[in-house]
């Protein structure tokens, strides 16, 4: 758990971050979203003390981050930046081993860890270990950047626009992979982005920042249904509120129980992981009233009707 207490950073007379307090839950993804100059990156960098706060403090699992030197603190906090910053003179394996080496891990412990991370990020160790960063595609570099940040099993992972340099198609895949990794490693992640869609897609909780302050910090659906500030309402897109709300729930979560004998009879099959927005779109396309929700292995798990989906899109 990360507790941020009235954190402030002044640059001369200007407050880049102005008295921000928030609590970030364990094993969740918190997204800080805001326009450029809102102070979101400064806030993130104060968590690992790449920027020293003017006042206020940060506690990670109850421990004040100011209680040890900055570079020692950072060895236990993963960090991914836009552009990744891979070391061009080191191989992929050497890059990933950076923090374990700094921590003085034994080589016999580092090697399997590097291989495990490469595999978790769908990079074949035999192929990629010895490559240099310039030999990788953008998507591969991004994954190596994430692997490097996770190498020493940090409890907290900070990411600053981690998908900013990817093209849209790869970006969605990378976002899915990140969600998968979060589930697998149970890391507490804090992600900074300017992209509200990305924030909604990734965040268990979303903080909206503007002019150094957090305007609202809550679950994404609350941001849509009860925006605390006109800017939050504008960012979450008043015109698209209903669709946005639908995109926050998966078919699996909303599925109605199957009545015996009905399985497979109704309309298109949709995966349980699809959002209601996608399911509604499928139903409209096929002109069907109901869809069958299927598991990863194809067994029917429930059904969804247009009426049930529409009911979930209404303001509560």
């Amino acid at each position, binding site marked *: 758990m990360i507790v941020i207490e009235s954190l402030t950073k002044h640059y001369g007379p200007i407050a880049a971050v102005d008295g921000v307090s928030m609590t970030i839950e364990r094993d969740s993804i918190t997204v800080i979203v805001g326009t450029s100059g809102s102070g979101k990156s400064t806030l993130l960098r104060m968590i*690992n003390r*790449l920027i020293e706060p003017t006042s206020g403090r940060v506690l990670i699992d109850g421990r004040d981050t100011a209680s040890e030197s900055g*570079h*020692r*603190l*950072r*060895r*236990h906090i993963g*960090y991914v*930046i*836009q*552009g*990744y*910053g*891979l*070391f*061009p*003179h080191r191989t992929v394996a050497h890059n990933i081993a*950076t*923090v374990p080496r*700094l921590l003085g891990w034994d080589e016999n412990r580092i090697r399997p860890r590097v291989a495990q991370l490469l595999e978790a990020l769908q990079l074949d160790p035999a192929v990629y270990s010895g490559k*240099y*960063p*310039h030999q990788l595609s953008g998507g591969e570099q991004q994954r190596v*950047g994430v692997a*490097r940040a996770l190498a020493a099993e940090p409890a907290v992972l900070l990411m600053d626009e981690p998908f900013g340099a990817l093209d849209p198609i790869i970006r969605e895949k990378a976002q899915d992979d990140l969600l998968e990794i979060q589930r697998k490693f149970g890391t507490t992640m804090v992600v900074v982005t300017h992209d509200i869609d990305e924030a909604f897609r990734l965040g268990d909780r979303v903080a909206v920042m503007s002019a150094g302050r957090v305007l609202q910090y809550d679950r994404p659906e609350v941001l849509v249904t009860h925006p605390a500030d006109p800017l939050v309402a504008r960012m979450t897109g008043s015109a698209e509120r209903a669709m946005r709300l639908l995109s926050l729930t998966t078919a699996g979560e909303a599925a109605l129980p199957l009545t015996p004998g009905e399985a497979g009879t109704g309309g298109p099959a949709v995966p349980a992981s699809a959002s209601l927005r996608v399911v509604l779109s499928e139903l409209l396309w096929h002109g069907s009233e109901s869809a069958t929700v299927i598991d990863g292995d194809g067994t029917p798990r429930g059904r969804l009707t247009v009426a049930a989906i529409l009911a979930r899109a209404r303001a509560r």
Partner: protein
Amino acid sequence: MRRAATVLRLGALGLLLAFLLVPQRFAPLFAPLAHGGAPAIYDQGNLAMLALAHLTTVLAACLGSTVVAVALGILVTRASGAEFLPLSRALVNFGQTFPPVAVLALAVPLIGFGEKPTLIALFLYGLLPIFENTVVGLRSCPAAVLEAASGMGMSARQRLFSVELPLAMPLILEGIRISLVINIGTATIGSTVAAKGLGEVIIAGLLSNNTAFVLQGGLATGLMAVLLYDGVAALERRLYRNY
């Protein structure tokens, strides 16, 4: 193409070694330039020893220049040392623009004749290329890479030695290479203050009006400079072919 270059390189090296070790074999080539029964080949000392002394002087001076210039370059690219940049730049520029001959003239009354004044002159003369290349090399490290290094938990020292200097190294080596080549030529003036080197041959030629000597000293020096330049470049390519 590569093979031809290698053959040419080895040929040049062979030619230089042959000339230094068995110079008398080349007498027929130089004879037309020696007039009035003067010797065609320098005979007042061992050419190989002179070349070795020449090379040693230049390498020693270059080592000094490298240590000082790289240290200065590191200092002025740290946040704490940035204010020393104009001063350091003025100093190394002065070292480059102040004529080495004048350095010798000033140094001899203070420390006497021999190798020492030459070492000082060459040391000063060789600072600039190494310093400028170090500064450019360290400054051109990508910002994202530096931020990642700090974000991974490297201390300032670890970042310098395991990221910044390795990334700047190709440029630093290039600076050293330029400095070396300039000084191989410049070192010939050391012979005016009795430092051992190939300059002796040239000066002997000038004093006795023997063009053959002058040409021998000049060619040997030039060939040494070219080979050294080429050798260091090959080493750089070998070291940094990966990125």
